[in-house]
């Protein structure tokens, strides 16, 4: 056990730090609260800049303009990005999830066709997985794709599609064999979102915004050469994408949560409760301490998991505890924020008296989604129960 950075890790960090020092945009704060439709060109430009510095996809192999970064280096990357409050990248699904899946399963022609434009943010990718009747039970999805000569004809509906409104391409999971067992009849298609018959509708979520879309496919023709991996092996291809989703995402959360709690402590010093500053109230102090401690423990868990994956080479089902831990912690954190802010906690962005322009009311509502998106807490507990502890499958 040695928690000091190795020479390689230090060099990686220092190179990134000095690159960020002269390249990270200074005006992101002016953009971040605008609607994403307005700021999207800005995010594309930022990604192109990262790509020019070979920082857009550090986990990718060197031959695809990555840096073959180790898990620990990836964690360092996200920490440094969070430290300088860098904007997100426009094509975050393409870079984080879909690109790696294409590199793993794609043909040479597919890699050459798609990878460069994922990197340059020229083509934005979205993910067509969930359906109205296939959420946690993803393998039960019903979108049909029928082979007609050299192309598939796709019909059905997808939901909870991030970046659907701006997506040029979609990693779409479809049913190609209705007679096979539910995991065995699925195929992944790479679909041009400009194809006739694709309709994208915004999905208004409980925060009032529309981060996600619903996708409707009516007789959409997709060339058979756009199958990713093997026909009827889509479950494995899709699972590999989800594995990336659970991989390094947690790394950046430590600093983000710390920023929340630091700001909250500042607010608690300036908020009166029961005749004294909230920061002096013993109950508030207990809650802030609990939360601060859990933020550190989240990071310890992540570092242990990275070391384990580095040693064994495979991300295991233990990763489910990270997902449960960060999502439930974020909800507890926002609840404490509400307790400290009192009636001000409910004020939305735009209200002149809202604290931090409504950041806390937004976060309070948004964190309800954390225990649902990317695998519900219930599914994560099923994974731990069955795959880690060896209990019989409950479903």
């Amino acid at each position, binding site marked *: *056990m040695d928690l000091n950075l190795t020479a390689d890790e230090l060099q990686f960090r220092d190179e990134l730090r000095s690159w960020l020092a002269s390249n990270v945009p200074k005006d992101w704060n002016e953009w971040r609260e605008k609607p994403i439709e307005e700021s999207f060109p800005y995010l594309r430009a930022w990604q192109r800049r990262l790509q020019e510095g070979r920082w857009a996809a550090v986990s990718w192999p060197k031959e695809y303009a990555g840096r073959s970064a180790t898990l620990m280096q990836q964690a360092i990357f996200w920490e440094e990005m969070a430290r300088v409050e860098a904007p997100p990248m426009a094509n975050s699904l393409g870079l984080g999830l879909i690109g790696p899946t294409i590199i793993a399963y794609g043909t040479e022609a597919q890699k050459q066709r798609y990878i460069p434009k994922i990197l340059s943010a020229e083509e934005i990718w979205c993910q067509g997985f969930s359906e109205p009747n296939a959420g946690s039970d993803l393998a039960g999805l019903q979108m049909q794709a029928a082979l007609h000569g050299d192309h598939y004809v796709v019909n059905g509906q997808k939901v909870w599609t991030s970046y659907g409104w701006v997506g040029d391409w979609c990693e779409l999971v479809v049913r190609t064999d209705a007679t096979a067992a539910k995991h065995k009849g699925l195929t992944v298609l790479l679909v041009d979102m400009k194809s006739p018959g694709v309709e994208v509708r915004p999905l208004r979520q409980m925060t009032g915004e529309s981060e996600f879309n619903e996708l409707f496919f009516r007789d959409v023709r997709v060339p058979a050469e756009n199958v990713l991996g093997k026909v009827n092996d889509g479950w494995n291809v899709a699972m590999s994408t989800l594995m990336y989703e659970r991989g390094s995402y947690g790394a950046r959360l430590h600093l983000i949560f710390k920023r929340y709690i630091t700001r909250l402590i500042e607010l608690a010093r300036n908020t009166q409760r029961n005749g004294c500053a909230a920061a002096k109230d013993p109950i508030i*102090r207990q809650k802030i301490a609990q939360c601060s401690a859990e933020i550190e423990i989240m990071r310890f868990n992540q*570092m242990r998991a990275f070391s384990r994956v580095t040693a064994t080479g495979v991300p295991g089902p233990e990763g489910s505890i990270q997902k449960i831990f960060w999502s439930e912690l974020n909800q507890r954190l926002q609840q404490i924020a509400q307790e400290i802010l009192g009636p001000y906690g409910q004020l939305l962005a735009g209200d002149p008296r809202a604290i931090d322009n409504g950041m806390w009311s937004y976060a309070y509502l948004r964190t309800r989604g954390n225990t649902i998106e990317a695998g519900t807490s219930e599914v994560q507990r099923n994974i731990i129960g069955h795959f880690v502890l060896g209990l*019989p499958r409950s479903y």
Partner: protein
Amino acid sequence: MQFGLSESQEFLKDSARKFFAGECPSAEMRRLMETDTAFDAALWSKLTDQGYTGIIFPEAYGGVGLGKVELMLLMEEAGRALLPGPFFSTVVLAGSVIDAVASSAHKQKYLAPICRGETRSTVAILEANASWNPRDIQLTASNGKLTGEKYFVSDAAVADFIIVVALNGVFAVNSKAPGLKISPMTAMDLTRKLYVVEFNNTLAEEIGATTNLARAFDVATAAIAAELVGGMQRTLDITVEYAKTRKQFGKPIGIFQAVQHQCADMYLETESSRSAVYYAGWALEENSPDASTAVSIAKMYASDAARTVGNRGIQIHGGMGFTWENDVHLYYRRAKGSETAFGDATFHRERIASAVIDSGTVSAKSA
């Protein structure tokens, strides 16, 4: 950065697990807990042969000179076996206090025999007010003599000498000294017995000042948290095994999500406690500036988690969980004693609060 165990750390942990499983299986643990002191001389000499009695102390005093992470691993395994007797009191607590406060002459006199396995000891800290805040200690030595009472002193009946924390220094008292009286407190944890120690004009040798106690207490606190991790792991293992084999409605009860999700939470709480304990061990070893806060984080989290894991374990066992013959309640009893030892979660949360709220941010080392 490598937050996994090295090969030699894995080896130490693995051999400790095998040692405790072989020398102190459940039946032996239960036999010892039914005795007055839970001490067994034969087991003690085996612990000594393993080098465990000198694990973290300098070779100059007959110790093995290993680090705090190694100590955490050993205590985790001792906790898994619910090792009865004065190992924690003697080696981890008294040994660390002597190591932290005493001169080398006093270390030769008091620490070296501990390392060699020749003596047992403990540290008397709490008084009637049961406060872990050193400012609340009232017992004061005058003219090299002590008069007063200490409560909740672990394993005092088998101690050859008792280290006493007084207001004006740290003292060593021979347990046979005139005016010293040891009487049992009847407490939940049968594997670690507690006593009242009374001093009446009792001769005491000053071995150091109280100023350096904090680090020794941090080591002991982290070690208690490590024991709790081992206890949680054992409780989880026993419970999962039961959930796989116990059948109701024609199915193993582990198939029901109401049961399975509780097991998943036990796993999450155990693993998170373990991460916090390993980090605390590392921070202590490196003398990292956040070491004390790291210890508080570990003790705070593990204290609450051990109780919760025990609650879930007993519940999942149903009626069996409520019986004397099931081991889960023995871990639950230990967890209660350990929860309050060196400050419960509330105490440590306040320590964390004063670090993060009152003196700016203190956080774990990050990249």
